[in-house]
């Protein structure tokens, strides 16, 4: 049984219980123990780094020290959290002066960054701790026939020098994971391009335009759904389609599903248990294609 300290971040508990539930359930099913630690705060992502870099590093380091204290590696569900924590972890491990600087700040809260744990995204956990082979064996309901447009988001891949998760130009891990469930990962134009999520709140029109391109390209490629790894991307693409209705007078209905939701379905879980009604764009089409009989768009 491999154990990890689960890092949830802000967006998932605040907005996306469906992500959390599917992740918890599927990882548990695959033999990964997720431990909730008290005290975890925001990870110190891009919005905080934009205000002050030292703050974002210190906040991220603070959260890492909680895991260090518990003797656990960290797993994140959000690639934004992954980028913030993994980048900080690597930078502080490599740069002694920087580590000392951050530790001086952390000492105000009685904490010290030691640099003895790893930060992982759950995608890495699936590949390294579970393995594609084992994963395939655990699939009880194959997603064969489903055409999935994979979208890992920027911060799973870049900056590649610090994250070292996958090849930034020819990534394949996410596609391998999707195909391990029996689905097909389809090509679509500008697959690796950003969703524009971080511009929401400052320039909503620009963010929406960028998100729209993704919806249009995946629709053109005849994808049944988009698979995401990040709650920000999810929000931008899912809620975004509702906004596109009023902004562009366009009807889009591209279901957006987190990988963990697809994973949960393939492991045989009942869609009712997955809080799928929190999706703004209904996922009925996907469930129909996969042969689920009842509609799950109403909460029980």
């Amino acid at each position: 049984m491999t154990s990890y300290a689960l890092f949830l971040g802000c967006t998932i508990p605040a907005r996306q219980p469906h992500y959390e539930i599917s992740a918890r359930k599927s990882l548990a099913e695959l033999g990964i123990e997720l431990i909730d630690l008290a005290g975890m705060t925001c990870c110190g992502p891009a919005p905080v780094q934009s205000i002050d870099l030292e703050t974002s590093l210190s906040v991220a380091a603070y959260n890492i020290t909680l895991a260090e204290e518990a003797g656990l590696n960290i797993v994140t569900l959000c690639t934004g959290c992954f980028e913030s924590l993994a980048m900080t972890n690597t930078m502080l491990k490599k740069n002694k002066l920087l580590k000392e600087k951050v530790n001086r700040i952390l000492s105000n809260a009685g904490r010290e960054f030691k640099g003895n744990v790893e930060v992982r995204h759950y995608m890495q956990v699936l590949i390294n701790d579970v393995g594609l082979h084992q994963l395939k064996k655990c699939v009880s309901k194959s997603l064969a026939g489903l055409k999935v447009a994979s979208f890992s988001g920027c911060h799973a891949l870049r900056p590649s020098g610090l994250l070292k998760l996958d090849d930034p130009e020819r990534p394949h891990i996410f596609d391998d994971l999707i195909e391990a469930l029996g689905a097909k990962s389809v090509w679509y134009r500008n697959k690796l391009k950003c969703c524009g999520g971080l511009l929401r709140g400052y320039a909503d029109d620009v963010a929406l335009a960028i998100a729209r391109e993704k919806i249009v390209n995946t629709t053109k490629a005849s994808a049944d759904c988009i698979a995401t790894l990040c709650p920000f991307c999810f929000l931008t693409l899912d809620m975004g389609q509702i906004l596109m209705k009023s902004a562009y007078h366009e009807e889009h209905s591209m279901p957006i599903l987190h990988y963990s939701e697809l994973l949960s379905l393939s492991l045989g879980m009942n869609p009712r248990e997955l809080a799928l009604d929190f999706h703004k764009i209904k996922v009925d089409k996907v469930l129909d294609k996969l042969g689920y009989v009842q509609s799950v768009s109403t909460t029980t």
Partner: protein
Amino acid sequence: MDELKVGVFLSTCGNQLSKILDFDALMDFAKKIRSVVIVAKSSEYWRGEGLRTITETIRAGKINRVVVAESLPKLSEVNIVQAIEDAGLNPSLVEILDLKDHCAIPHKSTPSEAVAKAKAMILAAVEHVKLLEPVEKAEFYAVKSVLVIGGGIAGMQAAEDLADLGFAVNLVEKASFLGGLAARAGRFFPTDDCAICIQSPSSDVKTITHTSRKCVYRSGFTEIPNMKIYTNSRVTKVDGVPGNYKVTIEKKPRYVNEAKCVQCDLCTAVCPVEVPDEYNAKLNKRKAIYINVPSVYPPAYVIDDAACKFYDCAKCVQICPTGAVELNQQPEKIRINVGGIIVATGFQEYDPYVIKEYHYGDYPDVITNLQLARMIDSFGPTKGAVIRPSTKEPAKRIVMVQCVGSRDRRWNPWCSSICCMISLKHAILIKTAQPDIDITICYIDVRTTGREHEYYYEKARDLGIKFVKGRPTEILHDPEVNMLVVDVEDAILGKLLEIEADLVVLAPSLVPAEGARELSKILGIELDDDGFFKEYNAKLRPTETKMRGIFLSGGATFPKDAPTTSLHAHSAALKVSKFLSTGKIVKDKRIAIVKEEYCGDCEFCPVTCPYGAISLVQKDDEHFVAQVSDILCEGCGVCVGTCPVNAIELVNSRPDQMLVQMNALMSVKGTSKPLILAICCSECGHAAVDSCGMAMMEYPANVRVMKVPCTGILQVHQILEAFKVGAEGVMVVGCKTDGCHYEVGSEKAKRKVELTKILLREYGIEPERLEMINLVYIEGDKFAEAAKTMTEKLEKLGPLQLMKSL
């Protein structure tokens, strides 16, 4: 031993120095020094009457050691020493000092202090010359034979020159045919000459008797006197010394007898094997038995032994009308003896596959400049047609991308120099032949620096070729219409473009040829940080490497165009010719000598010697000692500074010889200021003191200068000795650490100075009394500044308190 008889000759430089220095006092002082038998002064001693006085005195047997005070010794000593040698005295038994730029001029405001320093300098020179040993010249045999590695333009040109000059030339080429990269270029810019001519060497004799000086087309197949050509061959081992290298060449079999092959081409028709054709940059396939173009050298087919099925097939053997195919040929090992080596291995295109965003290798319609050159070449696989590899249809919309992997810190940070011209050449050739083809060139900068190169750029624009200043981020492919899309910003407009193309041509970085690193190890020469062979100094010593018998020619040092390569090749041939023409290499035996009884086989000196001149040899009782190669030793003394047990010494730079100078320089005070010893290397250090005086800068006369070959010769205890004999401060003055004329000496001296400072502190002596100064020749001001600063510092610190333990 003969009694020492020292003659001291002081030049007054046309009486100018006598205005500052009291020459009578100096001469009186000199007369009193033991072993000095003659003291004289004159206006000049480096030529004319003065020089004759010296040589006559020698011939008359009156003196056997000479001390001359003359101006600009680094220049004047050549004449003086030559004359002395002609007069019959060993030229090493001479010491020349500079009372002008090292004494009178910089200290002219303090004449009495200057005189005191002059006395110290004369005393040091006399005491030093008394300890000097005669140094003989050594002659090393030089074979008048040359090895040229690489059969492209550079190799062939240099080989041709040397063969014409009468040297025995061995030209070794790793490919099966001569010609190198240039032969595949199609045409040469900026004249658009055909490149295919560069397939075989020619002799100048022929071009003088024929009228065609421009074309070399018809000159290749005769035997060139003095030249042996080995194709399909590599150099695998090089032993020996400059002038006498023992080289091993390994020749792969051609499996075709060159004397019998008539190039009928029947064999390729029956050969069942097809492999990608590297000659045509893999645009097409060739058979296992093949020839590149009809006019190659050697004029015979060759079998690719990795592809051939040999006796499982042997169809070519059966069909060959002259029985030229010999599948049982064996590899050969050839050993030759040469005096000099020229490396002409050229360069190659970087494989852009690694630059994944450009999708070279993923999309067949993304090609390189070399592939385009092969297409444009009418001898090439498409007979001159520029086509899309994916459809074989003619290309109509071409986009060229420059700097692919060049000027890129992630791959190759350098500018590859000729790719702008190559791409312009291709664009002009295509557009001239087919004006309706649309061509756009995406660039960061356009570099057209050579003669007439800019007119290429003009012509390209006149023809309507478009230029976008922007480096594409990615090349995309639209599968629905099978078109490529180049994603680029026009940085001048600030607009993002998506340029559609059916063919994209990348201009990849140009990198050293395959095998360069292994070859550098075999030859013992260095590569620079970019992986090219390191030229010793491109301005002062072009084509030379650090190893005296090994030279470089052509693109092996850095990508070059054909005219520059040709120039470089001629230069290399000239250099080698000068090196070997007399059949011997003459050298002063001013070298390092090992005192074997002390050598502890610690391996420090072989590892430190920048010239690889020291090796370890096994003695009878099986222990190892260091041994110095007479011919390779450059006389720097860095080994001496490295040896922990003083088991190695440099001729005429022994510790006792240095100590006697230090003593003498400190013995005549004549000033209330604290005495400083400046130990200067004979290159930048001592030269900076010269330039200081030449520029009429002043500094205090308490600074006394002693010259050493390289600051790397210094041992920690020698620096401490200086303090013991009266120096209150010591300056070690050497070249900049990244510019040491002996590579590592300055760096090592710096380290030693740091260690000595630690020891000084332990001894209770202020470590600021010791400094290292790194400068170049023209930084005389830096030397003057340092002298003044240290004097002030020492005055503040007060007199040196030496502990009894020291």
